């Protein structure tokens, strides 16, 4: 009989969206209308030619399909699992206008990249040695994507990451029922066959930063955000108060002692990470999970479908509740909230308070910007702490330094980071080889940076 721990993993953390069987994929692919200049392609930050890869599945060419995906998005294998497609490609599908279910683009994409992984060979190779070296700081989605395209362009690439494993949030922060850690690591392993060297467990300090700037021809910063913001209320230091990312990381480590370790959990925040933490708390065995957000439902930044999942899992969503104090003697015993309401666009707290008893508090009110890392490399930041870049090339104010991902956009999706990595790789190439034009091996993926220009069609001016 499986142990309790095994049962919880098997039953509660199983993939929400499994793979498509071959005949399911064929039928689903056949539904695709093969739109011209398709809105799904526009909606995808990496501009994968979605109708094309779906047509390739319909034509029984899953490997070709996977190649189409991975050309435009080096992280297409994980994006197929973690992308919020409801608000991206699938949300743009013209079937919505027809009051029909959109094409299951994510699952079809997975069908293609799974085929590539089953074969165990990337559909493209490293470029001929350019004689130049690029350092990548951060082995998360932005850094890994950048490294993959840099290798295709022939740059000797070294990735540095402070964690013991590469992948960043793909490995440590994605809810396990969306993608497990093994899948993230398999994706990286295949991408690293392009020849990037990966140094994990390395903290980039002032000395190393200076060395990177000296020894490398360019540096890409893709280190993401810093630690979770503090609530700034009494009781925050009590044992039992966690930040969401370390909570999710602990859950993903599949530590048996972690299952059922809380009876009642309060998650504070209104974003997707907060909702993920609430859902995973329930699945890890907490009986009462309250997701508390200080504003109303419209202000929540979490996607509706994520909130719906948390509710379906039995989490209670408590709106207009501002945390005032974390209560407890020696350990967490509850959270005291003040009711709020919005008056003339301002959030007003009422005087009366109420308490939600709990034995764990998970803070998920966003991550702080890492202001020190860009400073080490001489890259200027915006007032909000994001790194300032040229949007076309992602070059920072420091000429040798490029940046992308959460550190630049303030915290978006894996696919945004992957798109940044791709853009920065070409930006670095243009900086090191001014006026460069993509060769035949690179023309396709380079064309996807801004979205492919479709063949111009003769303009006609006749009356409607």
């Amino acid at each position, binding site marked *: 009989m499986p142990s309790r721990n095994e049962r919880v993993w098997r039953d509660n953390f199983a993939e929400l969206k499994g793979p498509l069987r071959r005949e399911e994929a*064929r039928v689903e692919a056949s539904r695709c*209308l093969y*739109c*011209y200049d398709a809105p799904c392609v526009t909606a995808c930050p990496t501009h994968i030619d979605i109708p094309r890869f779906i047509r390739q599945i319909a034509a029984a060419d899953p490997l070709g399909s996977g190649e189409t995906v991975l050309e435009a998005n080096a992280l297409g294998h994980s994006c197929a699992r973690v992308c919020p497609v409801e608000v991206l490609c699938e949300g743009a599908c*013209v079937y919505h206008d027809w009051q029909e279910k959109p094409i299951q683009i994510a699952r079809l994409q997975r069908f293609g990249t799974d085929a590539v992984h089953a074969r165990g060979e990337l559909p493209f190779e490293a470029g001929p040695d350019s004689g130049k070296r690029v350092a990548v700081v951060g082995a998360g989605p932005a850094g890994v994507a950048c490294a993959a395209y840099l290798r295709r362009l022939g740059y000797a690439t070294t990735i540095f990451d402070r964690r013991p494993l590469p992948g960043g949030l793909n490995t440590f922060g994605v809810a396990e029922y969306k993608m497990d850690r093994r899948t993230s690591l398999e994706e990286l392993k295949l991408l690293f066959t392009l020849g990037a060297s990966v140094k994990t467990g390395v903290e980039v300090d002032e000395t190393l930063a200076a060395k990177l700037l000296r020894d490398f021809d360019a540096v890409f910063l893709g280190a993401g955000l810093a630690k979770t913001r503090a609530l700034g209320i009494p009781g925050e230091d009590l044992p039992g108060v966690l930040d969401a990312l370390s909570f999710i990381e602990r859950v993903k480590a599949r530590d048996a002692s972690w299952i059922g370790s809380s009876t009642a959990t309060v998650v504070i925040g209104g974003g997707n990470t907060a909702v993920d933490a609430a859902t995973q708390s329930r699945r890890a065995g907490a009986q009462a999970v309250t997701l508390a957000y200080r504003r109303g439902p419209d202000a929540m930044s979490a996607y509706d479908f994520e909130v719906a999942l948390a509710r379906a899992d039995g989490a209670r969503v408590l709106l207009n509740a501002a945390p005032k104090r974390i209560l407890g003697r020696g350990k967490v015993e509850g959270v005291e909230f003040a009711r709020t309401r919005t008056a003339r666009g301002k959030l007003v707290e009422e005087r009366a308070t109420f308490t939600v008893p709990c034995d764990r508090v998970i803070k998920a009110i966003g991550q702080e910007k890492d202001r020190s890392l860009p400073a080490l490399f001489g890259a200027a930041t915006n007032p909000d702490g994001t790194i300032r870049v040229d949007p076309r090339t992602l070059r920072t104010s420091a000429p040798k330094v490029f940046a992308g991902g959460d550190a630049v956009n303030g915290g978006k999706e894996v696919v945004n980071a992957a798109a940044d990595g791709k853009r920065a790789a070409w930006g670095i190439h243009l900086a090191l080889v001014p006026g460069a034009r993509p060769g035949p091996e690179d023309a396709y993926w380079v064309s996807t940076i801004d979205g492919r220009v479709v063949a111009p*069609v*003769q303009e*006609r001016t*006749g009356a409607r």
Partner: protein
Amino acid sequence: MKKKTKPDLSTDCAGIKSPNPFWLASAPPTNSGAQIMRAFEYGWGGAVWKTLGEDPPVINVTSRYGAMDLGGTKVAGFNNVELITDRPLSVNLKEMYEVKKRFGDRAVIASLMVPCERKSWHDIVLKVQDAGADGVELNFGCPHGMSERGMGAAVGQVPDYVKMVTEFVKEKSKIPVLVKLTPNIADVRFPARAAKAGGADGVSLINTINSLMGVDVETLVPKFAVGGKAAHGGYCGPAVKPIALNMVTQIANDPETKGLPISGIGGISTWSDAVEFLLLGATSVQLCTAVMHHGYRIVEDLEAGLRGWMKRKGYARLSDFVGASAPSVVEWKHLNLHHKTVASIDPDKCIGCDVCFIACNDTAHQCIAIDRKKGNRKPHVVQSDCVGCNLCSLVCPVDGCITMTEVKTGLKPLTWEQYAKNGMKGYTKVYESH
């Protein structure tokens, strides 16, 4: 009050009577008496027995069938290399007698194929007549295997042989004789005329079309092979219907064969497919592929569909509409050059897939445009440039979104024939060529 009458579905095709026009074609579904009786219990009007030949019976191979799927649709086209019946003649005749005894009101037609000798044909016709068959169908169509032995399509492809063998049969037959025609010929009207000249009571068509289903690109072996080798087979199923409809109409409209009864065959899956054959001149229809896909039960919805349509149209019997559409099929030279239609796109129904846009601009007449203002994706037709080709309306996935509308030109109809006779004069441009 209007009297409600149940439409009469009974038919008389070349003197063969059946309670409805739906017959099972000579094929695996009519292989045995037990099968045919089960089909009759479901309501089939007739059955053409799987082709009988001389003993010893043929030997079949494995595998036998192949199919072409389209996207999510299974069996859009179907192929077989099966030969005629592989059961002894006496067994088939005994079962035929039993079927007729139990289902006297249904049509049982014996499909026949023997070598091109007078005695062989005389012998077998007399035998099936004795077994109680309501008619015979001469299999001059089977395109594989038997044709290599000088039978089937090898006969059907030579009008003189068609006439000769039909005459052999008519010398002895007291029951109606249908001649089943092969489509593997340049002009189907020639064997049809030969059949008529030989005294046939009617023709049935089409038999299957020569086909090779494909090659497995992994193994490089032809698809649906027999131990690594494939022979061409006979192709049928939904994909062949337009070919069959054209051939049926050619015979229905040919002055030399006009009025010759036709049993229509080829890709019929639904009641409306059947109605199309009837409208073009067939008085019975034969089905096989759809039955092999879904079983005999489909006759229930075929019959219900036909009955419902006849009620809606106010037809009391098949003869009210059989052949009604055939006169509308003419030669190209009789089409009106002054007729004009243009496309229009309903923006309320349009979902913005832009499939029409790229189809028109890349491959047709470049008359669909998109006003890209404010992210609009909905295309519109530049009607002044439209040639009314239909392509956009064919590729549009949304029912009723793109319609082809007639534009009154006010011009007198002009056919190519008239135009040519006028010394290429009298044509007024109805569309822009570019």
